């Protein structure tokens, strides 16, 4: 962790403006920013841990709780809802055997909802980490999840 944060600070700088890119870098690697990571960032950037905490907890994509390797964010906006989002959510719950907000036991997947992803003309849509998947059907979702299952954790 210490090394990762140092690398990120070397890359983005050590000013307040570097804070968001650094936190984003940590989430990319760890899938979340732990309080331990926040303190370390504060030390590395020589700023108060409260400031780091304030920024880190504001943004919904900067998870502070532990998440799986693949974070699924299903769009909950009305247009995706009208195109069958509920069916997609049910399929995901069934496949992963978890509820919304939970992480699979093997720490592979977390299942979350998010606000408009900007794919309203191709709903339902979801993100898996930063990858966007659109025009989802239950079959398509099964295939996508199968593919991710093949990857090592």
């Amino acid at each position, binding site marked *: 962790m210490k090394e990762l944060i140092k690398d990120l600070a070397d890359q983005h700088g050590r000013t307040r*403006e570097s804070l968001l890119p650094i936190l984003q870098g940590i989430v990319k690697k760890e899938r979340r920013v732990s309080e331990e990571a926040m303190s370390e960032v504060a030390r590395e950037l020589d700023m108060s841990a409260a400031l780091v905490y304030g*920024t880190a907890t504001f943004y919904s994509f900067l998870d502070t709780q532990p998440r799986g390797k693949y974070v699924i964010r299903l769009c909950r906006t009305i*247009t995706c*809802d009208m195109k069958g989002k509920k069916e997609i959510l049910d399929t995901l719950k069934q496949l992963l055997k978890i509820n919304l907000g939970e992480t699979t036991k093997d720490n592979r997947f977390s299942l979350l909802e998010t606000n*408009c992803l900007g794919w309203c003309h191709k709903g339902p849509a979801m*993100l898996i980490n930063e990858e966007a998947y659109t025009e989802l059907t239950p079959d398509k979702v099964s295939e996508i999840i199968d593919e991710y299952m093949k990857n090592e954790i």
Partner: protein
Amino acid sequence: MPDIKSKKLKRVDLIFAEDCNYKEVLKKTLNRSRDEVVQEILDSGLRGRGGAGFPTGLKWKFTAQEESDEKFVVCNADEGEPGTFKDREILLKVPFKVFGGMAVCGYVIGAKEGYVYLRGEYEFLKEDIQKQIDHFHKTLDDLGLDFRIKLLLGSGAYICGEESALFESMEGKRGEPRNKPPYPTQNGFRGKPTVINNVESLVYSLMICDLGAQKFQELGTADSRGSKVFSISGDTPISGIYELELGMSLAEFVEEFGDGDTKAVQVGGAAGFCVPRKKFNDTIIGFEGVPTGGSMMLFNSSRSMYNVLKNYVEFFREESCGQCTPCRVGCQQLLKGIEAVKRGDQPTTYLQTLLKLTEVMKVTAKCGLGQSVANSFSSIVDNFKEEMIY
């Protein structure tokens, strides 16, 4: 509704047109005086395409007039309004036109640095856009313009589309809107004079430099000059992105894009207005009628407008930054309130109390988010009251 004759629906091809040689446009624009270029944008009547509709030329003019050692151009690509997806397509298909608009703005106001703030949901575009920026920098070097563009990413906060919240976020802080005034033209990114424009506004600025203000002025109406990119979704057989002349009636729009059974159209996303069928004829899409940042959601008669409203209020409750009480507590109470009326735990007259609450939010909330909750709330509750109750 003012008595203005609406225009016929007309498709336009300015934004995505591929015959624009942005290099030539930049070259010829950089050879003109700064005042001339600002005047051209002012004459065109272009108003911001993100939704609020502030005249783009005025923003540029005010910022150009400020004395400062540093100024900035920011491209707001944090498109988060539900139902909007045009900026992604613009950045994907014609990135050079966006950067070209930024460079012209930088020249006019005297800024050497530009920033593109891209929403976190579009992170998959990052590498691609960065490549295009690097390529664009070579063009700037050829032209001898001292201007550089940097790409920044958001992290899933709708409120960061609000200009002052966006600056806060760029500065590494919580995305909480600032008090206004001072406005960004005086006090923007790092407290310096800053022009912040929507992606689409920047492209139109470049197109106006190319084609002249006259050509742009010929389109649209007195209050809404030009054309606009619409993101069309919901109950329509042809959802997608369309560039249309401003000033058409909603009836014309629905005839083209509806599925034959359109009950209502939400114009301008969750922060916009819901227009019911009986008002389609008298509603003009534009600043003299109902303005939009591009989001157009169509609903047919199979849809429950209660579900639509609930979805929007849940959205606002989640995305409120929590800084000011009217918005933070207001959104929570509105959601609880409509649920209670639906369950029968509150009398139907309670809807009037909730409408009063949105009026309070409109005048007391600190930023556009809290102020605009009233738009969708009152237009849906007023027009579909039975659906809220039964």
